């Protein structure tokens, strides 16, 4: 029983290390701004691609969107899912599968693109 109490104690002590509401709200605002930026990138990069900023943005819309999305992803994972404060083990439980997942996605896209190109070449 004492061991149990200890754990409960350890856990609450642990939770206090979680950031406060202020941080959460700040992160929320940033997330909102980043989402607005994503939609703006879409709007300018595609619908106003004729001239000015839009023309500049047009060729890099996809990489920019990927970066913005990765930022949002990281913010939620670090602050809302508490990976920044919690045990490193939890981070690895998430990051290792993410790496495999990313490799799978990239490999499949590449394999299919290459396969179609190769089939065109030989036929």
């Amino acid at each position, binding site marked *: 029983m004492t061991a149990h109490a200890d754990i409960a104690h350890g856990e609450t002590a642990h939770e206090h290390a979680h950031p406060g509401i202020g941080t959460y709200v700040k992160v929320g605002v940033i997330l909102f701004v980043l989402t607005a930026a994503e939609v703006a990138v879409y709007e300018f990069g595609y619908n106003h691609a004729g001239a000015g900023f839009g023309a500049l943005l047009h060729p890099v819309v996809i990489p920019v969107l990927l970066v913005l999305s990765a930022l949002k992803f990281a913010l939620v994972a670090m602050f809302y899912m508490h990976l920044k404060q919690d045990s490193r*083990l939890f981070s690895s439980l998430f990051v290792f*599968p993410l790496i*495999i997942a990313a*490799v*799978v996605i990239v490999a*499949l896209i590449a*394999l*299919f693109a*290459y*396969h179609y*190109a*190769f*089939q065109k070449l*030989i036929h």
Partner: protein
Amino acid sequence: MATTAVEHAHADVHAHGSKTGLWSWITTVDHKRIGILYGATAFVFFLMGGIEALLLRIQLGRPDNTFLSPEMYNQLFTMHGTTMIFLAIMPLSAMFFNYMIPLLIGARDVAFPRLNAFSYWVFLLGGLFLNSGFLFGAAPNQGWFGYANLTSNQYSPGLNVDFWMIGLQILGIASLAAGVNFFVTVLNLRAPGMKLMRMPMFVWMSFITQVLILLAFPVITVALILLMFDRFFGSHFYVPSAGGDPLLWQHLFWIFGHPEVYILILPSFGIVSEILPVFSRKPLFGYAAMVFSGAFIAFLGFGVWSHHMFSTGMGPIADTVFSLSTMLIAIPTGVKIFNWIGTMWGGSLQMKTPLYFCLGFIAMFIMGGLSGVMHASPPADLQQTDTYFVVAHFHYVLFGGSIFALTAGAYYWWPKMFGRMLSESLGKLHFWLMLIGFNLTFFPMHFVGLLGMPRRVYTYPKGLGFEIYNQVETAGAFLLLIAFLVFIWNVIRTTRGPANAPADPWNGATLEWAIPSPPQEFNFAEVPVVHSRDPLWETKRERGGQLPEPVRVSGAGIHMPHPSYWPAVAAIGVAAVFVALMMLPKLGPAGVVVAVAILFLGVFKWAFEPA
């Protein structure tokens, strides 16, 4: 909480409920009993798969045979492969995960005992469902790899493929639930002092296996979902006429499929790595190298899947990449083999049955690995793929590898699990029959494969030079049958015999041998403290020789989780959801609603029940 504990045969009777009878098995959450359930169920499936194989071999025993119709042949070879992989080898490994991991790490149970029961019941229902196709004369008939677009409504209009894809879907849920459970168990329930690098090798390899299960099974889940949508709802993921690409199935299937073959072999690596030191009277050679090679195999295992697809014309760059990564994987595999040999080198070998099977394992697995490296080369593979050469390869790794090692594990841990020693002489007879039968059955497949005999075809014409090989193979298969009958006889004889196993019959090195055989419900009356990799050997050294036979204690005051039938209800819910999906045209959405209700009932009752 237990207030009284009565000695009853070999099981403790706790205050909360009787520990015998069918109901006690249905509601059990004890990892040892669940382990036995897994083992018994998997062995029955193994026998079914074996009988299917014998029928196939009879058909192939002579050319132009009509013993089996082509349709029956297709069903049998599909069910044979699917059964052996998902219903025999995986759950036999799961039997050892269940029974042995908590004992090896000094824990009283797994992290989530009821989730563990849930896994078993889902597995059982999935296995039964998969096989129920036979009752309708519509067992799966498209091969264990289920290549698209053979599985489309157009080419497989019957229920056969439905039984397969839904059966596998259900089984995947069982594996994933167990994967989470054992992953957490190994990380979180180790006895004090058991650091990661002190874990027994079987625990390490099982742990890596769980990682593979957790990362590979979701992929086949998706592949099967897409297939389900194609078949049930008329989407066109795998239908070329609508732009779909059957290669997508192959990729998704093998992204799962190659890790899957390591899911099948890594636990066996672990078993062999437990047995060899004990019977060589020497610690495992190259412990760290064993751990890292296992991890490396698993990691690389995610980057080689397309070696199953060389013949699809991926293109030279893709071929080269996957060929190289495949050859690379042979290196950590070789490291393991050298370490096993190094463990035995200079040891004082105790020639007991478990060691026999381990030696058989090493020799046979090397041969399977070598043929694997041969078709890692695309030009060679184009000759070998879809022939009996590949059949030879994967039987050398799966039968010569996994089954030999699992059998070794059965002989090794039998005394611990059942308190009785299997007969040594029958065990050795079993070994020789199995070794000879195995090689007679599968070695000629190398030749007949290179001669061009295609796999998955129900017969072959006279005069191509295939006859003699196939006759030998069929004869070998019957020898294998006899080998397993000897094993069954051994088990029956032993079970009828006296409970003669001491706690530590082999002079073991790991924690399970410190407690009575079979263990009491709570495993360890006192949680052990670990100071080294071979904790029991160390204790024996310190105390100068064998330890006294441990006494059974009352266990009063040790809190064990209560039995529960809600995991079984939830499992029924899971199976029901899928069956309702399959019968959607007949039952309509009402069926799904009822099934989901059962599932939710089970899950909520389970969640709010006191543990």
